[in-house]
């Protein structure tokens, strides 16, 4: 409340002053004071919250509510989760954080209410060790209209019909049945839709369970077919999981042609996970763009994560042409051509970030083999490539595993990329324009570890967008680089600018912190997750060593009741023709199953497996378990040896019935 207090003067003093004024006829200034009062109020936050989100809006399905908590003083102590998901507000009992941490995720999984379109509110309160509490603030989600609609088959027509019907009734998405389906797409005949504002999910039954394969004989000259083309300018979340996208083989792919598994166009918070892309697709496993002529909105951008996917055998030698052949695992491009308005001027606005960015693509926990590049980016894209395993790059044309594409006559190059914690078996890192961070990678290259080459342009007006700058490289392990670890070239233009250190605020940059790993969108337990799965073979004749394989299912609720007995029968690991099989014979003694603990009966140990030659490695699970466990299953491989060979492959398969 504002008040004014005036200083009071005595009548005598005023009379005297008035007399003096009367006599002098002059203006007289006297001392006076007023006061203006402004009330202030607020709260002190001892805990800050970031990256709050959910993993599902599907009715009657598990949904993980998550938020990243940071104690600003002391350590984190406890958090309380509250929601009205049951129809009335309930606060859970306090959950303790791990001792001695200042930052951690607060995760709670609940089975969502079965009521379609219900608005569910939730909140998280957390305290520090000084018992100072702070609140996230009320969050709201809307439960989807219904669960998934089953497609009749994996044909283009049946999938499209199921999608159209699901969207028309507000369903959460579509499920494609298991099978090796002929995906009879050709050119513009493909699956295509706009994500509704309440989000949409396409779910197969798992890698190599639901296979969509392009025709391999009925096209003499294959055009570029995009199997799934999805636009998301409504802002609805997109999720695709559990599908193998298989190309037409190399017999019908001509120079410059090729097919695409999924094109994601202007989606917000999309997630593609546990999918496989193989069979010589020839163009890209996944394209991520916001290009207007593809139906996108360039200002709206595109943002999401690709995780736990396998990209294998994309490269088609006979179709390769340096200028027209793509043959990438993941292609990232923000806009068409040049766009100085969308080009990020200050890289520190995007480094280590995701939330609030219009364009940001994360690729993590994926495997790549026989691709031209595992990831390539151009047209101003911003991306992060982390915790991936690139086992082989095509021999046909030497290029980087990770490619920051240069500025060229047809458009801007990559703007900003972060590559860290990757195992790059065959090729190193390559940059032609823009900037990025390369750190904590293990590189075993057949040529160079780091190629820094000024972009391919003679346009005198392109700088600084075509310049290689803001590049930071540190703490990588280079096992092999016969051409020399570094290849630096200015191509006769300006010298690229790079630093062999981390960025630092003291240097006028920022004290860089990676975005939380795993990406919050991957906390969903939508299908099997093979965490930390990294096979690496030794050089021929050397030993391959790891100490244990551990099967672990995590999640919440931590126990389930079923009227069927869950079993895991076998756990095979195969090195070439050398199969090592463990008979697990694990089953539930009753109909109750517990999660969040390592299942001791299926703790497996292999030691010092010798490999004589370059070898394919295969892991297979067999059994019959509840779907909810399969969704949360993780295979942890510990103590992997450190020697990597030039050619190795691994495949992960499962033959698990779900109920």
């Amino acid at each position, binding site marked *: *409340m*504002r008040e*004014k207090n*005036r200083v009071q*003067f005595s009548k005598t003093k*005023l009379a005297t*002053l*008035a007399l003096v*004024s*009367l006599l002098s*006829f*002059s*203006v*007289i*200034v*006297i*001392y*006076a*004071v*007023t*006061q*203006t*009062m*402004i*009330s*202030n*109020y*607020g*709260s*002190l*936050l*001892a805990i*800050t919250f970031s990256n709050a989100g959910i993993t599902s809006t599907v009715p009657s399905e598990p949904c993980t509510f998550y938020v990243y908590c940071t104690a*600003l*003083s*002391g350590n984190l102590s406890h958090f309380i989760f509250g929601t009205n998901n049951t129809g009335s507000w309930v606060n859970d009992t306090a959950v303790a954080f791990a001792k001695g941490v200042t930052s951690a995720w607060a995760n709670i999984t609940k089975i969502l209410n079965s009521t379609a379109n219900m608005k569910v509110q939730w909140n998280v309160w957390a305290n*520090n060790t*000084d018992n*100072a*509490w*702070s609140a996230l603030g009320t969050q709201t989600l809307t439960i989807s209209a219904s669960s998934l609609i089953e497609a009749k088959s994996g044909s283009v027509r049946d999938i499209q019909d199921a999608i159209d019907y699901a969207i028309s009734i507000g369903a959460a998405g579509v499920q494609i049945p298991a099978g090796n389906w002929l995906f009879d797409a050709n050119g513009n005949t493909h699956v295509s839709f706009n994500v509704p504002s309440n989000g949409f999910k396409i779910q197969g039954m798992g890698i190599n369970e639901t296979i969509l394969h392009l025709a391999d004989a009925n096209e003499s000259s294959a055009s570029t077919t995009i199997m799934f083309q999805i636009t998301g300018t409504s802002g609805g979340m997109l999720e695709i999981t559990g599908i193998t996208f298989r190309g037409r083989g190399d017999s019908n792919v001509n120079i410059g042609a090729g097919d695409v598994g999924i094109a994601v166009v202007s989606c917000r918070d999309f997630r593609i996970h546990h999918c496989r892309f193989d069979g010589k697709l020839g163009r890209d496993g996944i394209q991520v763009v916001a290009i207007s002529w593809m139906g996108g909105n360039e200002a709206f951008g595109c943002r999401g994560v690709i995780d736990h996917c396998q990209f294998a055998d994309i490269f088609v030698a006979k179709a390769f042409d340096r200028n027209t052949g793509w043959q990438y695992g993941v292609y990232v491009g923000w806009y068409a051509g040049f766009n100085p308005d969308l080009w990020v001027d200050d890289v520190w606005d995007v480094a280590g970030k995701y939330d609030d960015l219009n364009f940001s693509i994360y690729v993590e926990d994926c495997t790549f083999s026989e691709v031209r590049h595992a990831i390539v980016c151009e047209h101003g894209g911003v991306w992060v490539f982390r915790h991936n395993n690139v086992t082989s790059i095509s021999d046909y044309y030497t290029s980087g595993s990770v490619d920051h594409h240069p500025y060229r006559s047809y458009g801007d190059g990559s703007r900003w990329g972060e590559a860290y914690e990757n195992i790059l078996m065959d090729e190193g890192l390559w940059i032609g324009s823009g900037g990025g961070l390369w750190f904590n990678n293990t590189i075993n290259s057949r040529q160079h570890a780091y190629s820094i080459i000024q972009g391919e342009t003679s346009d005198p007006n392109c700088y600084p967008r075509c310049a290689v700058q803001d590049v930071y490289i540190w703490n990588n392990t280079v096992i092999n680089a016969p051409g020399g670890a570094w290849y630096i070239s200015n191509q006769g233009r300006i010298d690229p600018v790079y630093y062999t250190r981390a960025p630092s605020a003291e240097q006028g940059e920022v004290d860089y912190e990676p975005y939380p790993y795993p990406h919050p969108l991957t906390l969903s337990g939508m299908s099997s997750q093979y965490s930390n799965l990294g096979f690496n073979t030794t050089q021929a004749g050397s030993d391959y060593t790891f100490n244990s394989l551990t099967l672990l299912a995590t999640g919440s609720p931590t126990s389930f009741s079923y009227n069927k007995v869950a079993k895991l029968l076998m756990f095979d690991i195969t090195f070439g023709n050398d199969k090592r099989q463990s008979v697990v014979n694990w089953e539930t003694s009753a109909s109750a199953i517990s999660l969040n603990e390592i299942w001791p009966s299926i703790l497996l140990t292999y030691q010092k497996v010798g490999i004589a030659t370059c070898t394919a490695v295969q892991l297979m699970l067999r059994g019959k378990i509840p779907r909810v466990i399969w969704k949360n299953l993780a295979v942890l491989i510990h103590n992997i040896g450190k020697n990597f060979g030039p050619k190795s492959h691994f495949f992960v398969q499962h033959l698990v019935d779900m109920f």
Partner: protein
Amino acid sequence: MKLRRIIILVSAVAVLVVAAAWAVSYITFLNTGNLLKPEGDIGVYSDSSCTNEVTSINWGDVSLGTTKNYTTYIKNKGTVNVVISLNTTNWNPSNAKDYIQLSWDYDGRVLHPGDVLEVKFFLQAPSESHGITSFTFTAVIAVNV
């Protein structure tokens, strides 16, 4: 006779003119007399056009160890030059005054009548909570003429 009338008329006019002049002076004096009680009068606004008066500031959630700022526009609404000063009072809880600091970037310059000056207020939170979860206090801007 006629001349005398003219002289009398002119004299009367002169008297009236003098009287009028005196009256004008008196009126002027009265106006001057109002200035005998000059008051510094300021307004605090959230917009540079000085239409939205600030009577309270909601600082929201302030993270420990951080500083938030709030931009105001202070206008000298009076007729004299003023300088202003800042103080705080009525803290709740009372110990909050020991840990939470309110300051501004006003540099002590003289505000002339009609002047509008952008002034930022800064609220600095302590690095530890000291048991304080929420707070209220009054900011006092003294206007010195």
